[in-house]
């Protein structure tokens, strides 16, 4: 009997695992995908090797890459970018850690209070969340992003829009700024040289500006795992959880098992109350099933897999909201081409942003060639100059929206990848019941019936559609202001990368799965701690910080409710995840 079993070692699960390990609980962390314990031996810097969703090392599938990836049903032109493996999607993320806008929390009374998704706010206040934001920010640590040429160019465009610069952690108004990110600031030779002989740790510390965030961070070369620049959970929370005995008094290291696919959450009736009692998982390699019991079970498999596991476990869904209310920031993609050098594929993927509550936001995104090309061709508006698929909007960009492909894409890329600046358009999108995860009618895989992710992108709420158009125009104006000679709007089909709220926490029992403590309403001792627990799309900010802050809060609630413990976030200071005691212990463990 474990104290706690956490299902999924992505962006959220390791937070709960680490916090409770520090309190001395016996925690088992199960990850469906690969461990990736030796990145220098397993990873490269190449896009197909890394990011091919069928065969890459960053895919949704088992460790053995000769076996197929796990198939998921998407009944529309879309791309749901799931990742298995320790670190989950933080393995390929850009480490952006903006706070959720205050307007998405209960009790907000700013002048723009009616502009948000007012029916789906968090069931507690922004002020209550702040200590948890601060805890995660100190732990990662979250810092102000260093600037490269592509950021300089983004700021040049932002300066033409008549907005102030944000110099606080909290976003109070439309404004722009460097990202607050979980990327260690460059130190020593990092960022100052391209000579690889000068870029070994500790001569170089923090971000070396290599430009490979999306292929996984394993730099500076030679650094301990917990001092790699990007604070994905495989570089931060997981190392802390595995070494809890050396940095927390009374701490107990977690047990981590990879290639362990949880297929069922078990329950029993205790005094007439449905209560979680354990899990069954399947070993990807041997196919053997294992079962363990626990006092508390935490689901952290992500927005698509949590609903699937819920349904496959036969758990109750009295209000029908399991899997519903999936938000994705309804992204769009704007490409600017320049006559001058932009530094597009160098440095952290995105280190500049513009926030525009209550509409959404923008951020620059640098990508290598294949991902750039992919980004240019994912569209719901046909092919520019050929057909529009019923859309093809016009505006302050050049020509109709649509795919930049074939000869046009080749010409654009031939102009130089260092002459492009791309902007991600982030929409403050509404929680909608119709955007959801159900079980697919297609054949099951070895782990049971598979999930189906449905997004009705053309039938979203008026507010969502209006916000996206508003932010797309701002993106085009920013690129013009930065000096773009040509601006292309792609009108992305749903690229589901920022995922939120499919098992949402809410005030009302009518449209939420979790109560305000993060426990499921239908099953006691069952908690959810990852992006799916978020109440809404946060107004547009990248979700990881808010998700980890909420998971920290949930860990406290678990400790208080079921282990007679005291909360710690308001009274203690966190150990920073780069702590040398962790590095030393990782070395002893061969990690």
């Amino acid at each position: 009997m474990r104290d706690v079993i956490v299902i999924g070692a992505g962006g959220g699960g390791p937070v709960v695992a680490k916090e409770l390990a520090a309190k001395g609980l016996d925690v088992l962390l199960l990850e469906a995908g690969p461990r990736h314990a030796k990145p220098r031996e397993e990873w490269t810097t190449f896009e197909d090797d890394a990011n091919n969703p069928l065969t890459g090392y960053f895919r949704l599938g088992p460790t053995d890459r000769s076996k197929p990836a796990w198939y998921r049903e998407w009944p529309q032109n879309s791309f749901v970018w799931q990742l298995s493996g320790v670190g989950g999607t933080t393995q390929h993320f850009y480490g952006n850690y903006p706070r959720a806008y205050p307007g998405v929390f209960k009790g907000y009374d700013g002048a723009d209070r009616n502009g948000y998704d007012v029916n789906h706010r968090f069931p507690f206040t922004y002020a209550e969340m702040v200590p948890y934001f601060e805890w995660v920010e100190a732990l990662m640590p979250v810092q102000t992003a260093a600037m490269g040429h592509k950021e300089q160019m983004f700021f040049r465009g932002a300066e033409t829009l008549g907005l102030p610069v944000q110099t606080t952690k909290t976003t109070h108004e439309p404004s722009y700024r460097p990202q607050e990110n979980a990327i260690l600031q460059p130190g020593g030779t990092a960022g100052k040289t391209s000579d690889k002989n000068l870029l070994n740790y500790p001569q170089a510390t923090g971000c070396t500006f290599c430009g490979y965030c999306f292929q996984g961070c394993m730099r500076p070369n030679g650094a301990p795992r917990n001092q790699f620049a990007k604070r994905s959970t495989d570089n931060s929370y997981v190392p802390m959880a595995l070494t809890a005995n050396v940095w927390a008094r009374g701490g107990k290291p977690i047990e981590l098992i990879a290639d362990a696919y949880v297929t069922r959450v078990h329950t029993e009736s205790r005094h007439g109350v449905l209560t979680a009692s354990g899990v069954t998982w399947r070993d990807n390699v041997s196919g053997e099933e294992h079962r363990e019991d626990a006092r508390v079970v935490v689901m952290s498999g992500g927005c698509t897999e949590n609903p699937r596991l819920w349904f496959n476990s036969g758990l109750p869904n009295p209000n029908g909201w399991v899997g519903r209310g999936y938000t994705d920031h309804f992204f769009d993609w704007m490409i600017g081409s320049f006559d001058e050098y932009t530094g597009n594929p160098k440095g952290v993927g995105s280190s500049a942003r513009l926030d525009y509550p209550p509409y959404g936001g923008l951020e620059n995104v640098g990508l290598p060639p294949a991902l750039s090309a992919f980004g240019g061709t994912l569209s719901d508006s046909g092919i520019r100059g050929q057909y529009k698929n019923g859309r093809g909007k016009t505006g302050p960009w050049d020509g109709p929206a649509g795919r930049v492909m074939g000869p046009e894409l080749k010409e654009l890329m031939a102009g130089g990848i260092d002459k492009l600046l791309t902007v991600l358009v982030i929409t403050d999108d509404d929680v909608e019941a119709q955007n959801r995860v159900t079980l697919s009618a297609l054949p099951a895989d070895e782990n049971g019936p598979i999930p189906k992710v449905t997004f009705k992108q053309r039938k979203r709420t008026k507010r969502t559609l209006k916000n996206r158009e508003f932010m797309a125009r701002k993106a085009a104006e920013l690129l013009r202001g930065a000096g773009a000679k040509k601006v292309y709007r792609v009108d992305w089909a749903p690229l589901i990368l920022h995922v939120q709220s499919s098992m949402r926490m809410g005030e009302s029992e009518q449209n939420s799965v979790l109560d305000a403590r993060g426990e499921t309403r239908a099953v006691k001792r069952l908690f959810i701690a990852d992006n799916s627990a978020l109440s809404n799309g946060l107004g547009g900010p990248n979700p990881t910080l808010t998700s980890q802050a909420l998971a920290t809060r949930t860990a406290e609630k678990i400790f208080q409710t079921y282990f007679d413990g005291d909360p710690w976030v308001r009274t203690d200071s966190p150990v920073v995840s780069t702590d040398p005691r962790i590095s030393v212990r990782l070395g002893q463990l061969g990690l």
Partner: protein
Amino acid sequence: MPVADPPPLSRRAFLARIGVLGAALGGGGLLARSMLAPADAATNPLLPPAVDLIRPVLAELARDTLNGLTVFAMPGPDAYSRTQGTLSRTPGALEAGATDFMINALDHFVPFPDAIAQPVGAALVTGLADSGIALPGLDLLPVELRSLDQALAAYLQSDAALPLSFPIAGLLNLMATQVNPLAVNGPHLSPFARLTYAEKAAAFELIEKTDSDLVALLDVQFPEPLKGSVSGLLKFVGGALIEFATFGAYSEYGVFDPDTRTLRKRPVAWTLSGYQPNGPVEGWDDFIGYYQGRMEVHD
């Protein structure tokens, strides 16, 4: 045993439209007509059964069709790009190995359950009725046609996993002949590869249209609750073919050595776009400083 009636005209048209007829027996086709003649098959035990004859034909047909797709994503200095009307001086998708990328992905790595792939393939190849489009130049003896059709049916009904590249090629060719019926004949092996760039775009417009006839036809083949799933899949496939072909063409796939995890040559797209001129790096000297000199912020 009574002799079966020859397949009706609509079957001939259909086999032509998905490209099988031309690839097998058309001008430049891969099979000698006599190989499908029943007299030979009955009397010569050295000749392989028709189903073995047709397998490599379908593989070549799929490759040719996908050549037509990958140059649509990234044209180059090749014959397919020339036919498409977008000849380019610099290397393109074929030089980048994008067709192999697509075939490898479709046939070995798309984790697409056979339980769906088989009926989708069968629906595409056996179930669709004649659209009434007149197709020129198909002077074929009924007996050869019947043999070909039977071989195809036997292949689709066999237990062997259907390579997904074949129904995908069939889909593209079917749409190609909808856009331009003349594409049943001409250079290359497949109707889709014979289209101009604008015609290929028109073919994708048909696939992406949410109310397309093809979607309706396919859904008819499946009972609930799979009905919507198949049409939904098709909407997904239309976008994915373009996006994935483009990703493959601009990636390092064609020159990557998985054993050493290094590149044998510089990828086509790296040369085209000027990406990391000296190969992979440990870092860049691109750090300028902090915006307005601010290294930290507080509330």
